[in-house]
């Protein structure tokens, strides 16, 4: 049997998760305190389908970037949806996407903190992506573009998770500082400073690769 010391990234992930769990507990306590009905009824199920299910792609995208692999992202999104459904009695309208993403984030970070001694996370390249209609390019430009895509993906994936999640929520989900602060359970000032440091690291990483 062999033992492996958690990598620096994993340890850092674990530290972030501990302050995150507190934020999550606060959300759940607030929500469940207001929820005296227990299990969601049929009307709530309908409302859940209207307000939470539509954000599956946002949920999956966040989970995919946090876990860095497809298989775990799928499992964690499913788990997050079950949790969201269970706590849905406490959802009082408003931003369904932000509410769901807070659940997804917590589910993923909890998983990351528990994951010790796991094998290196495989990176897959053949996933179905939002294909933008791209203008015809000559081979050389296409190659430069492809290598830029790979570099960018590598740089985002190697960011510490506390920066990675903020970058994904801001740049890919295009959420506002206020929404990100709700999802991550941190003040707006912290969102701004993590975003700024994350971007600085990305720029350094991209420059090192070019």
């Amino acid at each position, binding site marked *: 049997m062999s033992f492996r010391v958690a990598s620096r990234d994993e340890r850092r992930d674990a530290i972030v998760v501990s302050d995150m769990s507190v934020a999550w507990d606060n959300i759940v306590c607030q929500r469940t305190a207001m929820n005296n009905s227990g299990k969601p009824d049929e009307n709530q199920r309908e409302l859940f389908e209207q307000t939470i299910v539509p954000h599956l792609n946002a949920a999956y*995208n966040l989970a995919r970037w946090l876990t860095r692999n497809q298989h775990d992202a799928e499992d964690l*999104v499913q788990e997050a949806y079950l949790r969201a459904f269970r706590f849905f009695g406490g959802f009082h309208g408003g931003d369904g996407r932000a509410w769901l993403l807070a659940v997804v984030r917590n589910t993923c970070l909890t998983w990351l903190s528990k994951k010790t001694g796991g094998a290196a996370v495989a990176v897959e390249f053949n996933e179905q992506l939002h294909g933008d*209609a791209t203008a015809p390019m000559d081979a050389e430009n296409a190659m430069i573009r492809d290598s830029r895509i790979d570099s960018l993906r590598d740089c985002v994936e190697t960011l510490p998770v506390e920066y990675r999640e903020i970058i994904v929520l801001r740049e890919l989900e295009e959420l506002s500082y206020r929404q990100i602060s709700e999802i991550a359970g941190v003040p707006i000032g912290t969102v701004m400073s993590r*975003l700024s440091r994350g971007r600085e690291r990305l720029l350094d990483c991209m420059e090192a690769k070019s």
Partner: protein
Amino acid sequence: MTCKSALSLIEAYIDGELDAAQAAEVRRHLDECLDCAVAHQRLTRLSADLRTLAPRYIAPEDLRNRIMQSVGRQPVAIPRRRAITSWAIAATVLLAISAGWNAMLLQPRKTAGDAVAQEIVSSHVRSLIGDHLLDVPSTDQHNVKPWFNGRLDYAPDVKDFAAEGFALIGGRVDYLDRRPVAALVYKRRQHVINLFVWPSTSALAAPDAVSGFNLVVWNQAGMQYCAISDLNEAELRQFADLYRR
């Protein structure tokens, strides 16, 4: 404005988080200061790269089905028309009943505009599942407009804003507010915008955001327009302003 304070605001400026007065100050400083302009350009380029080059992963279809099953629903490959109808009926019934009852079942203060807005969200979401988005895939407005002939009893105005970064990708006929309506489909980076157009003399009062989607509605020349997307609010408004022009 000093470089120090400008640098601290550049990111909030790029992210559209400054108020108009602060944004104007930063813009003025960027015009005068080369160092800050370079920093601004670097960050803007990073942001553009992330949005256009970094993958935004899409959930596999069977995950959607697994989730629907796990919350006690049959999997729905093709979302049911019934869902909207029953929703519309439910909303109408709810309107008739007291406000207290409303608040218990749904969000507080449900209005007719909210009910249509919810239908619009359902249509938007349905359009993104499988290949329901386009009946007529075409980036040419001169193909899309005539396609609606005979399918609708009115002719929607079809415009393309590819040059401004909102490319027309096609259209379809959808069903909203108890009538068939034109849905024009645009793309901004990885975000799909559905623009619903139908004749109406009274302006629809819909909220700016429903369930995390942004909505912009306007009424012009006897037509009701509603743009919906997960695109950020500022850019969706920019799209609406282009269209209204």
